[in-house]
């Protein structure tokens, strides 16, 4: 259908691949500022276009029916999904895309295995096995993560007795099977399929016990894994574009994983193997009522309207209640009265890195108002009112004061330092970590028990009427 122009591995194709990955890197560099990021995304997309066209013009590329069909189906699904997806659903979408990417790598590895199994060259064969294992783990792990985020699977940790032992045995088995395959003159396809299935089971077992609150780490980790699997596929296909692009994605996922883990003050092994996020930890004296003050929307409006500076602390509860637009209305009403309004975003405020920022940007909150934790904490003592909406554990002062707390050492947004605090929450129930929040009982804290969206709307209306 299309005449082959480039020789596989030849200079012409390689130069165009170098151009394409240069555009990826340049695109990512543009992504360091909100103003240039959109353009950077376009540049990276052009790089991808160049890489695809170059590959289509390689000698030996054929079966055009399969290629055109696959491109058509994938493009249609991609377009529809990207237009329809809600911003609250971004974590699910990214989880699914991680999975799809890992799945593609595992399938390509299988295909290559069938092609090269006649003559085993370790340089090619080892990357094929790596791609198969990592690709399969990230496909299944991401699907489980998607299921949890979409509420198809219970978000609480699902643990099998002896989980660690089973995982360790599986891993040993996978390594052993790979060694058998690599040392054989005519590796068996049965064992290879066994490796794919074993990696699939491992992917399920690793993600199933992880609770909802740890999802930002899991998504980032799977993102890194899919990237590395693509790089492994690049080694086996001798394709420089795959190696560089896959490694860039791997670095990105790794950085985000580390940032998320730091934001929760937990190590990666602890998150993966402890099954903590969402576990019903018992702390304090259960059942014992501690005194707290409760106020209504009208009173909250008065406190806010006569403040000079207000900091809004959004949490995942805000996203669940779809309250971002109502909160923006409340902020508009305050700004009209000359109140300085900022938003303090904890790194794990949403279900994935940066999720809360996107939700607020969707509600037209300017990005300069979205302040990072380290940036806004020093301003807290000068803040008149801090409004906590749908956030809980990330504001718990016990993280700093109580060394025995399950969240001890976790960096928090120090709302307790503000002159007054209003917490909008449905009830006194604990957050994901299952622990009581000392903030609720402080003398300068008022609780407003309501749905976040309704409460923000009522406060906005009350401020307008003042």
């Amino acid at each position, binding site marked *: 259908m299309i005449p082959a122009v480039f020789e596989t591995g030849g200079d012409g194709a390689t130069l165009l691949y170098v151009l394409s990955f240069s555009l990826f890197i340049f695109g990512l560099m543009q*992504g360091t500022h909100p103003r240039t990021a959109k353009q950077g995304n376009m540049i990276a997309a052009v790089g*991808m276009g160049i890489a695809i066209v170059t590959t289509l013009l390689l000698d030996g590329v054929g079966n055009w029916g399969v290629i055109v069909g*696959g491109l058509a189906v994938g493009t249609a699904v991609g377009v529809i999904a990207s237009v329809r997806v809600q911003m609250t659903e971004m974590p699910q979408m990214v989880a699914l895309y991680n999975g799809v990417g890992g799945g593609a790598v595992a399938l390509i590895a299988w*295909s290559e295995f069938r092609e090269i199994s006649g003559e085993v060259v370790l340089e090619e064969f080892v990357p094929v096995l790596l791609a198969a294992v990592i690709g399969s783990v990230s496909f299944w792990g991401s699907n489980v993560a998607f299921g949890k985020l979409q509420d198809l699977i219970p978000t609480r940790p699902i643990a099998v007795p002896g989980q660690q032992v089973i995982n360790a045995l599986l891993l040993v088995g996978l390594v052993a099977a790979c060694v058998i395959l690599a040392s054989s003159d005519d590796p068996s396809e049965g064992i290879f399929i066994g490796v794919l299935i074993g990696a699939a089971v491992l992917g399920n077992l690793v993600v199933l016990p992880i609770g909802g609150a740890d999802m930002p780490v899991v998504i*980032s980790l799977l993102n890194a894994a899919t990237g590395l699997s693509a790089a492994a596929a690049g080694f086996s296909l001798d394709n420089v574009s795959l190696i560089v*692009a896959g490694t860039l994605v791997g670095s990105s996922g790794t950085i985000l994983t580390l940032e998320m883990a730091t934001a929760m003050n937990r190590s990666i092994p602890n998150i993966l193997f402890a099954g903590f996020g969402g576990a019903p930890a018992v702390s304090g004296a259960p059942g014992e009522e501690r005194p707290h003050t409760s106020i209504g929307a009208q009173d909250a409006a008065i406190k806010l309207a006569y403040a000079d500076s207000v900091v809004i602390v959004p949490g995942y509860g805000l996203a669940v209640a779809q309250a971002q637009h109502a909160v923006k209305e409340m902020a508009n009403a305050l700004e009209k009265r000359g109140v300085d309004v900022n938003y303090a975003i904890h790194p794990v405020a949403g279900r994935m*890195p940066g999720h809360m920022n996107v939700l607020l940007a969707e509600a037209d909150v300017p990005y*300069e108002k979205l302040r990072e934790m380290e940036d806004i904490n020093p301003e807290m003592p000068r803040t008149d009112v801090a409004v906590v909406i749908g956030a809980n554990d990330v504001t718990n002062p016990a993280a700093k004061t109580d060394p025995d707390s399950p969240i001890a050492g976790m960096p928090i947004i120090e709302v307790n330092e503000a002159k007054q605090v209003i917490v909008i929450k449905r009830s006194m129930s604990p957050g994901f970590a299952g622990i009581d929040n000392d903030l609720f009982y402080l003398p300068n804290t008022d609780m407003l028990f309501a749905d976040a969206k309704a409460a923000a709307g009522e406060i906005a209306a009350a401020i307008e009427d003042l």
Partner: protein
Amino acid sequence: MGLVTELTIFVLSAFVGFVVISKVPATLHTPLMSQTNAIHGIVMLGGLIVAGFAEGALELTIAFIAIAFGAINIVGGFMVTDRMLGMFVRKPKPADDPTEVPK
């Protein structure tokens, strides 16, 4: 390309990735992830290459699914990133932006 050359490229890319991505502010982490999803769609090249030597129903099906998966990543990833980043740029606040001409 030899294995050592490929390892060199791998190591250098990892360092470039770390340097560049460390500079991305937390505000843009979600678009960054969906953009890296799209870049990860580069695996579709692998699908295109294996489609060339695919024989028989099984191999053709594998190639078809791999290409479709890669295309979902590329098209869906870049488009949804564009949609999100549009939310960060559309804001009529010329005062904060010296490069924008106030109306």
